[in-house]
């Protein structure tokens, strides 16, 4: 094989300009694909990070059926204190989990004594919430960056609509699961911005205040948000947790808990999927570029070397060796293009990181695009390019190997 490779490489160097142009075309294609993967991947992970670290957490556990009715924030589908205790015990024994935050969520009325509107309230343990969604405090645009008992953090939309500000006294009224209405006065502790735009109506208060409004004698949790130490282990931890929690059954023998990743809870997942689909089509375009360019150059190589093929065939070269010779030429072009493309891509990605390109997402500004490549991305693209190069060379190589030496030698 080494001997054939040596001859194949010499053949490529025979037509230097053509080899240079073909491998350049492949290299540029590889470079664009890798830079796109790196940049779109960076964008995607920044977005996912914003959503999971500001609001959702990486995983959430609810009572089964809660997510289907999540718009109405049903208090009747909260987890009981006993169930929540079981869940917490399980979570504490999973080493991959960094933090978790139990939440009571309910819908209520928010009034500044002049005007009233509706609000979605999240009752949280401040320390647990901040550990689980570490970007939470950065969303507080006005007021102290904290969640204190007796205070409420209200969304920007409400603050602007009701012309309320930090320090104002307001009242929150809600109906508990038994149907009785209760209210409690709060001081506005801060104005909080939404993650993805000005449409959010989520306010935050201490979980004890939520229990008081809802007249809970013992805690009932709507959801538990979970943060992992390593985001890449999302599926593994999700499956493990799901397996553990599915053993817990109610009196009817049905599972109590419902474990879901952020992907199932956020509409942004569809945007992330679209980025993946775009990446797939960009890869297809690369395959087309490689296929056409290699096939073109190899067909020309075979056509130009018909007499030479006749000669090596006449002196006894087996058809399979002639096939190998041309396949190695295609393979070598693919390798040269892939190596050059990878190198170019790494240089460009290094330069992008050096320049620090910033962009805004929703209410977040100044996010820095930090493209990076996994070794698996580089390997996959290289394998695709080299495989397609060999596949593209297959037809011309097969034609060369099937040539009758007597006809080939007669070719002018």
């Amino acid at each position, binding site marked *: 094989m080494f*001997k*054939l490779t040596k*001859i194949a490489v*010499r*053949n490529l*160097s*025979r037509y230097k300009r053509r080899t240079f142009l073909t491998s350049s075309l492949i290299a540029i294609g590889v470079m664009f694909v890798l830079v796109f993967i790196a940049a779109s991947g960076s964008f995607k992970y920044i977005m996912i990070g914003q959503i999971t670290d500001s609001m959702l957490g990486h995983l959430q556990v609810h009572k089964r059926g809660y997510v289907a009715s999540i718009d109405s924030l049903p208090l009747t589908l909260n987890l009981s204190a006993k169930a929540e205790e079981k869940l917490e015990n399980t979570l504490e024994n999973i080493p991959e989990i960094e933090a978790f935050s139990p939440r009571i969520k309910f819908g209520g009325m928010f009034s500044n004594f002049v005007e009233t509107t509706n609000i979605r309230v999240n009752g949280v343990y401040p320390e647990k919430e901040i550990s689980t969604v570490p970007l939470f405090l950065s969303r507080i645009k006005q007021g102290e960056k904290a969640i204190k008992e007796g205070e409420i953090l209200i969304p920007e939309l409400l603050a602007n609509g009701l012309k309320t500000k930090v320090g104002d006294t307001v009242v929150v009224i809600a109906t508990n699961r038994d149907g009785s209405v209760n209210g409690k006065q709060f001081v506005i502790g801060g104005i909080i911005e939404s993650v993805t735009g000005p449409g959010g109506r989520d306010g935050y208060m201490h979980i004890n205040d939520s229990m008081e409004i809802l007249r809970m004698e013992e805690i009932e949790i709507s959801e538990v948000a979970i943060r992992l130490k390593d985001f890449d282990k999302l599926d593994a931890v999700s499956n493990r947790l799901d397996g553990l929690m599915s053993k817990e059954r109610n009196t009817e023998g049905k599972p109590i808990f419902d474990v879901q990743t952020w992907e199932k809870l956020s509409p942004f997942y569809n945007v992330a999927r679209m980025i993946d689909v775009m990446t797939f089509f960009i890869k297809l375009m690369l395959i087309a570029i490689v296929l056409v360019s290699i096939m073109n150059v190899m067909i020309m190589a075979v056509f130009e070397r018909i*007499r*030479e093929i*006749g*000669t*090596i*065939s*006449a*002196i*006894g*070269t*087996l*058809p*399979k*060796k002639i096939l190998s010779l041309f396949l190695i030429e295609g393979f070598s072009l693919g390798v040269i293009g892939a190596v050059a493309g990878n190198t170019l891509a790494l240089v460009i990605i290094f330069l992008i990181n050096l320049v620090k390109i910033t962009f805004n997402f929703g209410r977040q500004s100044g996010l820095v695009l930090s493209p990076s490549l996994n070794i698996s991305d580089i390997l996959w693209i290289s394998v695709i390019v080299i495989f397609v190069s060999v596949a593209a060379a297959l037809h011309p190589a097969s034609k060369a190997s099937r040539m*009758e*030496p*007597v006809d080939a*030698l007669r070719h002018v």
Partner: protein
Amino acid sequence: MILVNAKSLTKVYSLGEIKVEALKSVSFEIEPSSFISFIGPSGSGKTTLLNLIGCLDKPTSGTLEVSGRNTADLTREEAAAFRGKNLGFIFQDFNLIPVLTVYENVEYPLLIVQNVPGEERKERVHTLLSTVGMIDQKNKYPDQISGGQKQRVAVARALVTNPRLVLADEPTANLDSKTAFMVIDIMRQMKEEFDVTFIFSTHDPKIVSEVETVYTLHDGVLTDRKEGKGGRHV
């Protein structure tokens, strides 16, 4: 043992609906270690005959045995392997591989076709290049040497595998007289030294004057066989 045994050899080419009989029932026998030429005008069937003997083509009818093997029975792969083991080729246009040096061109059949081990390969290539007087040019590429030198390299390449039979199609057609004589002389030396049979297809009188036996072809028919002047060298 007879090296080449042709009986009623016929080759018909189809050009659309037209059939051209390139060889018409040709029969002959060639002994080992011969120096033979087929002569005749263009279109007489010389190259067709050499192609058949070289297992590059198959006869339409008749039988042709080379080294005791019926060439019509060979598959493509078997024919290639047979050529690599038993035959050497010298072409009018030299047909050296342009990306390989003189040394590598001679080494090619041993390296790619016969998989001869390194040391033996090196020795055989050096011997042949020395014999044809090209050892000092071994690192040059074909486009850096003259026509006569190319043909000497082609002779070395044809002989490096120790074939029993070398087929040379118009080997002096692209050479000047002096160079042609030099190449013919080298081939004669090779024949003596390596006990190999040379079959030429030519209308070059220089070759005709040097061979032992001359077969004349005319319109695909073997019309004459006579001893050449080269017979005196045997």
